[in-house]
């Protein structure tokens, strides 16, 4: 028994130990497995998991970047960042949110609906996220809040910056305005997407939009450690952002303001340009609106008021408005005819009035003057704006040769390229008509094209450039609205123009080719004419149009040589005049507003030593001589009075470089 018992016990011990051994072997393998797993996670894949862990815990908070400012030529800030008083609250840090809100409502006189919107907004966001109670407090409200601050725990009065346009509507069509970034902005601009934070304001139109990349600035970045619930635990570092670039314009605020005044209660546009540097001194479109309204979202009724205004304040007429140039095209037609030896200054046409209009293939072409001008020379035809003469001249010239000259002088192309909605306009040609409309050109169309009607369409800024390029003696200039610190001096430009003129007179195709090769980046104010005398002739004719009796703008002349200017009126029909209407000969206020003619005036001055070109458009203003030209008289006074000041600043800029 004992023996067998011992034997059995021995066997049992053996079994247990054997089984334990097998088990221990298995354990060793499993242990190795665990160690292997630890090795793979902690050593082999350490980098991957370290990144994941950092991704877990680190969050970046980007603060709104500080936008660059705009300055005018004289360094006045025309778009700036103002200190804005805001009221923030972090709902999580408030014991009783409702009571607090009621208290604030009392202090700030908030409306019930505003309060409800706020509470809705609060419920949408996380409790530790900042809720903006008010984006723009007045100083009074702000100090009131500060006075009661001790009983408003959790409330944070915050100083931040907001866009401000101190000249209100004066610069709207130049600068545009900023407003909260929309989905569209984010999709279309990478830089906005990249710098976007809640509450970011971006440019919507004008230079604010065009120069977004320079203006937007860099976000300050706060790096936070957050816990699993997204709550900020502590700040790890702070990366200071950068303010956007300050942009200096060539515009003179005083003149810009004055153009605003001149266009008051009218729909129209005024542009003033330096005929050598191409600097835009004023550029206005009327009516305008206050860009400050858009900063915190414009009120609905205010917006629909602007949108539905029949005078179209949203349209920047200077660069985006397309109009028939009317008689303002005549100097170019005359120049083209002279350049192509189609007419000579002595060439005469008899204008016999409405009873004997020009007839071509059964169509009648009337001059604007009922009684007719009689025998007209080229100079008189420009001076008195005789349509009959220009019908004949353009018939001889043909549309394609006119197209070549007009295009050279800046029509039919973008002037600044700084505005998104800048229009090219149309300078028709036979080729253009074939491509755009698919029809052959008719001779009759050449005739009305010669008086600036028909297909031809220009923007007021294009006419200003055209005038400037005529006024400087027929040389190409480079229009700009943003100040170029490397701008050449007037003397140097004049010198270059002279040189270009001399080269032009030599048979210099070869020379200009080599010149082009060497001076590919340099501005060469090359001549746009064949014969300098032709340009001089046209300028003379414009002078007589303003300063000699029977000239169309004679009544708007200034005799003082300091201010004396030369110009050309234009009256552009907006619809075809029927026979009945012609016979009725209605006064301007008898015609419905929408059917009245557009009034144009282009001019340059001072005549003796010209420096500035202007173009003035009054939509549906009637005749150019009665509506647009008188504005030029006032404008030139102001522009030339500011000339010395501007020169001083220019010298300063030149010496700075």
């Amino acid at each position, binding site marked *: 028994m004992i023996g067998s018992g011992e034997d059995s016990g021995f066997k049992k011990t053996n079994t247990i130990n054997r089984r*334990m051994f097998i088990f221990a072997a298995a354990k060793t393998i499993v242990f190795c497995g665990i160690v292997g797993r630890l090795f793979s996670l902690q050593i082999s894949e350490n980098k991957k998991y370290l990144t994941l862990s950092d991704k877990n*815990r680190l969050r970046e908070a980007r603060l709104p970047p500080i936008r660059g400012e705009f300055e005018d030529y004289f360094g006045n800030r025309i778009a700036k960042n103002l200190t804005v008083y805001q009221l923030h609250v972090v709902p999580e840090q408030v014991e009783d949110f409702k009571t607090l809100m009621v208290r604030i409502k009392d202090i700030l006189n908030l409306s019930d609906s505003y309060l409800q919107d706020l509470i809705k907004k609060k419920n949408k966001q996380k409790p530790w996220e900042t809720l903006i109670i008010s984006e723009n407090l007045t100083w009074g409200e702000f100090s009131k809040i500060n006075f009661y601050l001790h009983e408003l725990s959790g409330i944070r009065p915050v100083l931040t910056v907001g866009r401000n346009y101190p000249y209100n509507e004066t610069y709207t069509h130049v600068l545009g305005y900023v407003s909260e970034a929309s989905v569209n902005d984010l999709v279309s601009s990478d830089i906005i997407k990249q710098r976007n934070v809640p509450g970011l304001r971006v440019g919507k139109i004008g230079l604010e939009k065009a120069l977004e990349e320079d203006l937007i600035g860099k976000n300050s970045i706060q790096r936070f450690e957050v816990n699993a619930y997204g709550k900020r635990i502590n700040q790890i570092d702070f990366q200071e952002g950068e303010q956007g670039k300050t942009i200096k314009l060539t515009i003179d605020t005083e003149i810009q303001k004055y153009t605003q005044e001149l266009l008051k209660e009218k729909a129209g546009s005024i542009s003033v340009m330096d005929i050598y540097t191409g600097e835009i001194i004023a550029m206005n479109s009327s009516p305008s609106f206050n860009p400050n309204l858009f900063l915190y979202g414009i009120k609905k009724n205010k917006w629909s008021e602007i949108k539905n205004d029949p005078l179209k304040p949203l349209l920047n007429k200077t660069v985006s408005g397309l109009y028939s140039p009317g008689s303002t095209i005549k100097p170019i037609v005359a120049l083209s005819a002279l350049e192509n030896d189609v007419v000579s200054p002595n060439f005469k046409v008899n204008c016999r009035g409405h009873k004997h209009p020009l007839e071509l293939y059964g169509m009648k072409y009337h001059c604007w003057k009922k009684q007719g001008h009689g025998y007209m020379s080229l100079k008189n035809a420009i001076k008195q704006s005789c349509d009959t003469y220009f019908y004949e001249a353009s018939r001889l010239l043909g549309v394609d040769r006119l197209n070549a000259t007009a295009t050279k002088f800046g029509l039919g192309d973008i002037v600044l390229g700084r505005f998104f909605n800048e229009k090219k306009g149309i300078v028709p040609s036979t080729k253009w008509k074939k491509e755009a409309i698919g029809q052959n050109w008719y001779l009759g169309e050449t005739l009305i094209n010669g008086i600036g009607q028909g297909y031809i369409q220009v923007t007021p800024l294009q006419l200003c450039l055209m005038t400037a390029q005529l006024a400087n003696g027929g040389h190409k200039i480079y229009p700009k609205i943003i100040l170029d610190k490397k701008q050449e001096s007037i003397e140097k430009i004049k010198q270059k123009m002279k040189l270009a003129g001399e080269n032009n007179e030599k048979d210099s195709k070869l020379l200009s080719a080599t010149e082009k090769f060497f001076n590919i980046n340099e501005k060469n104010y090359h001549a746009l004419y064949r014969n300098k005398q032709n340009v001089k002739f046209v300028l003379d004719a414009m002078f007589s149009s303003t300063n000699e009796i029977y000239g169309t703008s004679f009544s708007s002349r200034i005799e003082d040589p300091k201010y004396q200017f030369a110009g050309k009126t234009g009256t552009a029909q907006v619809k075809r005049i029927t026979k009945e209407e012609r016979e009725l000969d209605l006064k301007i206020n008898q015609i419905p507003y929408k059917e009245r003619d557009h009034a144009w005036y282009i001019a340059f001055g001072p005549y003796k030593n010209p420096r500035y070109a202007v173009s003035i458009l009054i939509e549906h203003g009637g005749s150019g001589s009665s509506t647009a030209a008188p504005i030029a008289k006032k404008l030139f006074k102001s522009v030339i009075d500011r000339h010395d000041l501007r020169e001083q600043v220019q010298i300063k800029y030149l010496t700075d470089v």
Partner: protein
Amino acid sequence: MFIQSSLSDKSTFFQKLRSLDYIMLFCILILGIISSLAMYSTDGGELLYHSESHIIRFLVFFTMMIFISFINIKTWHTFGYLFYVIVLGLLIWASLFGITAQGSQRWIDLYFINLQPSELMKIAIILCFAKYYHRVQIANVNKLRNIIIPILILFVPISLVVTQPDLGTSILIALSGIIVLWLAGVNAKYFIYSSLIFIISAPFIISFLKPYQKLRILTFFDPDKDPLGAGYQIIQSKIAVGSGGLIGKGFLKGTQGYLEFLPEKHTDFIFTLFSEEFGFVGSILLLVVYAILIFRIIRIGSFSRSFFGKFFCYGFGSAIFVYITVNMAMVLGLLPIVGSPLPIMSYGGSSMLATMIGLGIVMSTKIYRRQMIS
């Protein structure tokens, strides 16, 4: 008879004190210190509720373990079944009147401690089986009677724990029991057959599981499927361990734990937190400490004169191993997430109590290693 009586233990108190396993005690103390540090870290580097009560528990239960060491192994043999029956009673009590937390009714409120009887059952089942197989002759082990009865003994508590519901603990109880069955010499083919049956029937078993348990198992296979939901725990745990690197982020500098990305960092995921802060080196050291502990337990078993002592030590040592590997495999993403604490390290009184009782019995096996049990 004479031989037996001469081998019965009559040593003095100092002899007993000397024959305590000091290497084992040292390992336990090391684990106590490491776990206290880890718990201190979960409290964010302050001596708060979790760290404080963990340290107190450790000290109390460690002292208790020393006392248990001096209880004759014979006494444990005598009360082996009774202990099982008492724990079973507590389990039934918990199922009827227990405290419910996180959707599971598994605790009994004893005023000074919330007792989780299922944790004690892990020990009770080993004790019970050790006693059962102590007297079964090797030839009779595979008799039907000796298969059926242990299975019943095992089945009753498991079914109670599963219905609490507590899948993790019930699996660990089952494994504890099966280990002893294996050691006792139950025919290997039974294990093979039953595991085959288990694998085949697994889909049916899964269909009986609670939705959250099903989700956990499915998530295990593809944690990235729902990274913020069910897969969150596995993903965050892997990130924590992986980002620890070779030497870890440093004590109290584990961002995953500190910033509350780690779920259940006090209990089941304590190893994750430790591993994040102490890295690969720390984790291996911890594994080595556990390995030494298990090795000592099994060594004590091998010197034991009684089958009871042998069964218990082998069983308990292996069970500890299983608890550790299941927990680690789980937090390392090698097994589905089921509730299973890491012995001594995890926060939880009942688990600590059960482990310390087990260690106490092991120690007593050493002190009374020459004690024969008839």
